[in-house]
């Protein structure tokens, strides 16, 4: 369970996040929406350790994690995808997922250099797991292609497979459906929903595609100008006048 307690993030005079309280718990998808510049990506960057919050705390199961680095946080079970897919282009699709398992593997320098029996067994298991994940997202046919040769939608599914490889219990998706058509979006979102249930992952979904957010999220939080302005089940959010105002502007009286 992730908790944000009064988190503020300032960049000079810009208040990207202002006293945000948020809870992410249980298996399933929780939506996070808001107009452009409302602080959604900043929130993800704070939770995954790319930014240290100016004020407030981030807690993982009650333990404070604000200030830890991304490479420490993934070991505690937090991972993410990026708004613009950040695939390792020079590596194969398969190797990308292998890198994703880095925090789970234990072979150090000498064990790797001398290919100890333990390392060989560990690598074999890791290769099987990588193929399993590629089957899950449907990229197994492309396992040996260069990362750079995938289509845009495939980059996003590869990023998802790579994130799942770390066995994280908290997954933050930064606009996973951006640039995808409706069919691709539906496929990706059902996949996310399925793995969230099967693997018991809490997913925070940042998304501009309202249909996707409304259809797949259990609850939705809304950010506007760095502040949380609403929270609730999709039906409530749809009819919340503050949310409508933040997107559409205030009605002239």
């Amino acid at each position, binding site marked *: 369970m992730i908790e944000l307690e009064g988190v503020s993030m300032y960049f000079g005079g810009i208040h990207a996040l202002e006293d945000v309280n948020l809870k992410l718990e249980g298996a399933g998808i929780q939506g996070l929406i808001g107009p452009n510049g409302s602080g959604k990506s900043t929130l993800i960057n704070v939770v995954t350790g790319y930014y240290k919050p100016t004020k407030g705390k981030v807690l993982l199961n009650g333990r404070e994690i604000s200030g830890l680095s991304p490479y420490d946080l993934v070991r505690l079970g937090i991972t993410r995808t990026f708004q613009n897919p950040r*695939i*390792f282009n020079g590596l194969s699709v398969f190797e990308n997922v292998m890198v994703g398992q880095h925090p789970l593997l234990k072979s150090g*320098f000498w064990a790797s*250099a*001398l290919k100890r029996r333990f390392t060989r067994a560990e*690598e074999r298991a890791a290769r099987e797991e990588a193929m399993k994940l590629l089957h899950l997202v449907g990229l197994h046919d492309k396992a040996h292609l260069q990362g750079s040769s995938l289509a845009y939608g495939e980059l996003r599914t590869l990023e998802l497979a790579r994130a799942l490889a770390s066995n994280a219990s908290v997954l933050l998706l930064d606009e996973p459906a951006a640039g995808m058509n409706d069919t691709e979006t539906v496929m990706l979102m059902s996949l996310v929903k399925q793995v969230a249930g099967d693997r018991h992952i809490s997913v925070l979904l940042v998304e501009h595609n309202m249909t996707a957010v409304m259809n797949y999220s259990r609850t939705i939080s809304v950010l506007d100008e760095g502040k949380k302005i609403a929270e609730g089940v999709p039906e409530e959010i749809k009819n919340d006048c503050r949310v409508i105002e933040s997107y559409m502007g205030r009605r002239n009286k």
Partner: protein
Amino acid sequence: MKETRNRFVFLAAVILVAVVPLIWDNYYFLSVLSTTGLYIILVTGLNVLLGYTGLVSLGQAGFYAIGAYASGILVAKTGAPFVLGLLLAMLLSGVIGLIIGLSSVRLRGGYLAMVTLGFGTVVQIIMINWDDLTGGAEGIWGIPPVGFGPLKIVTPLAWYYTIFIIAGLIVLLTYSLERSRIGRAWMALREDVAAAQMMGINPVHYRLLAFVVSAVYSGIAGALFTHLNGSVFPDAFGLQTSIMILMMLILGGSGHILGPIMGAAIVNVGFEILRPFGNYQSLVFGFLIVLMAVFMPQGFMGLWRRLAALWGEAI
């Protein structure tokens, strides 16, 4: 399949290396090949840094010099055995590698190139000016032959085999690393640092590791250089040596385990083949290198891969 092919290539290389001197037992030819072996080690060292981890270094000759002088001075002044000289070379170059590597925590690209360039130059200046220890510009000559216990490595053939066995072990070790969790972490950092961090990879840790490995390889090559020649002198460790190492890596194919071997062989053996051009040897060689850079931008291994892809399509 790729693994089987690579195993085949290694086996063929081992047989080639073992048999060649038996056919061409020529003193001059053996010394060219031994130098090639040293460069295979040096270029493999740079490949770990630049090829895998994406960190540029123009100061590889500095690590090479530290290894060469460490072993040379220890053996010449105390009569210590070769193994100790080699260990000191590895230790000292490794520690200096760690210190220089710290600069990569904040610097990359052109700035890191400047730091390593400066490092290489400083090392050479120290070697020239610390007369008491290094023998100054003339260096240290007449270092007694070394070996393993009573077994001294004296003949060019013995040196040839010694160098190639060590180079072979280093290439194999690097190949294991490349295909391991460690190698994947290096390559992930080369491709995208932010994404690599989310994969649990600590950039500082793995960059420093790459620097130390690279420096230790260069140190080993240095110790071998000193005892192969029975002497050590600052001229061998100038900027042109660092540039040569970089050029071999680029020509051979950066980021590929066979790249350094191809690069070292092309430059060393290729240069000798052009000897009939006499005074124009360097000119012709330079021209060929420009052609290679233009027409094979990914080096020899890139060309090899393209040909293999064409061949795959043909059948």
